[in-house]
């Protein structure tokens, strides 16, 4: 497997591949997470209500999730580099056109449709698929963890940058400047071209449809997909409802800000560490431990008197367990099904995550409206943690028999 890089130019060396993938994750996630900073100034500039921008972001999330399996399938067929280049170009165009979108309908098309499609093709999941092909198997988990941590770092780099641009030049010019960063993605994608080692891919003869059918008839894949649904549920519920929960308890917004920043900070540590651990220890057991850890943290948070100290400890623990699931889950997909269809198959698992996120955010609001508290949601989060911890245990952490090379 090692010989595959021998005759490649420097910009396609293993280090360059990993650096370019991480840079893409930083730019695409960072730019996206800075959109929240634009809600008020852009709405004020255009005379919209806040719902207009919120609708665009909702459409963006929807198209990102739905588009991911398709973008993954195209990347599997035509190469991750090409899809990243095309997706990055669409993403950059969407952000640039947001700056001149004068109506709510226009921003829904630019910031919603274009950026959503661009994210599906030009961001993290396709980088993961490229890493699965281009990085040596013994460093793959580490590289996936590093890319996840890098993407999480993007929020800390681009939020100050976006805020600085808005303060100095106004929201429209700030969007234009950010689109310049996203326009670098097609250049960076040049390092992520190529199909890697076909022997390692293993299932080259399978069509996408057959691969999908085989995956859905493989119990371990279904268990993994259902587990990732829980991950999305937890994350979206906490992202959306933790701040109001804390202020409902009489805690300050400053503490809520600290809690959220600690989650982001420890998320970087957790994602990177999970990637390293996934290269040594069974991924299914690590995933089971992560979900069990979340359940333990939720239970402590529900049962103990909520003090500022407990909030910060909870935030640090949840941060460690936040996106640490990503390198392990994507690594398991590559391990079970090889790299031939990893873009599409991880795209489907990712779609499950986004559906879980949608349900978690929505159900949190509905439960609070009906009962006046989040207690039911915390209990549900604990139950789902136990469920997710249990479903990862029987996963067969080896190549799936249906897709083994001998049957291809």
């Amino acid at each position, binding site marked *: 497997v090692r010989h595959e890089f021998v005759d490649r130019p420097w910009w396609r060396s293993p280090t360059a591949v990993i650096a370019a993938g991480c840079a893409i994750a930083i730019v695409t996630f960072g730019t996206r997470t800075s959109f929240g900073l634009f809600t008020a100034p852009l709405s004020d500039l255009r005379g919209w209500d806040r719902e207009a921008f919120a609708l665009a972001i909702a459409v963006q999330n929807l198209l990102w999730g739905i588009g991911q399996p398709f973008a993954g399938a195209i990347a599997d067929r035509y190469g991750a580099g090409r899809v990243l280049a095309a997706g990055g170009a669409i993403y950059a165009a969407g952000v640039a056109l947001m700056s001149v979108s004068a109506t709510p309908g226009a921003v829904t098309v630019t910031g919603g449709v274009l950026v959503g499609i661009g994210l599906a093709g030009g961001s993290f999941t396709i980088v993961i698929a490229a890493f699965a092909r281009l990085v040596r198997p013994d460093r793959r988990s580490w590289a996936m963890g590093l890319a996840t941590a890098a993407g999480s770092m993007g929020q800390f780099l681009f939020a100050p940058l976006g805020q600085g641009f808005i303060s100095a030049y106004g929201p429209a010019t700030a969007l234009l400047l950010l689109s310049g960063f996203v326009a670098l993605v097609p250049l960076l994608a040049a390092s992520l071209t190529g199909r890697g080692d076909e022997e390692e891919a293993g299932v080259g003869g399978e069509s996408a449809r057959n691969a999908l059918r085989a995956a859905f008839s493989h119990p371990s894949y279904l268990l993994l997909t259902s587990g990732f649904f829980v991950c999305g549920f937890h*994350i979206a519920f906490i992202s959306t409802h933790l701040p109001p929960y804390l202020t409902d308890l009489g805690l300050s917004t400053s503490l809520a800000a600290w809690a959220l920043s600690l989650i*982001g900070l420890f998320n970087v540590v957790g994602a990177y560490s999970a990637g390293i651990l996934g290269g040594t220890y069974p991924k299914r057991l690590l995933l089971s431990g992560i979900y069990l850890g979340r359940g333990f943290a939720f239970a402590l948070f529900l049962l103990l008197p909520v003090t500022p100290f407990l909030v910060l400890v909870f935030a640090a623990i949840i941060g460690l367990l936040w996106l640490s699931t990503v390198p392990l889950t994507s690594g398991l997909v590559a391990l079970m099904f090889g790299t031939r269809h990893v873009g599409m198959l991880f795209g489907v698992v990712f779609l499950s995550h986004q559906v879980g996120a949608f349900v978690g*955010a929505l159900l949190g609001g509905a439960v609070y409206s009906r009962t006046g508290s989040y207690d039911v949601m915390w209990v549900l989060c604990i139950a789902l943690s136990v469920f997710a911890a249990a479903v990862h245990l029987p996963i067969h952490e080896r190549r799936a028999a249906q897709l083994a090379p001998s049957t291809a």
Partner: protein
Amino acid sequence: MTRRRTRDLLLGVALFAAASLGALWQVNETTAQQPDSLPRLVCPLH
């Protein structure tokens, strides 16, 4: 500890240091500019 492990560890420390600065900025910005509003978590996947 092998060279690879040392390199991985140093990279992790560098990531943590950079992220710490970002987290401090985020707290400062949220509390200084919008003291009465709820902060929104910026998660890469949402």
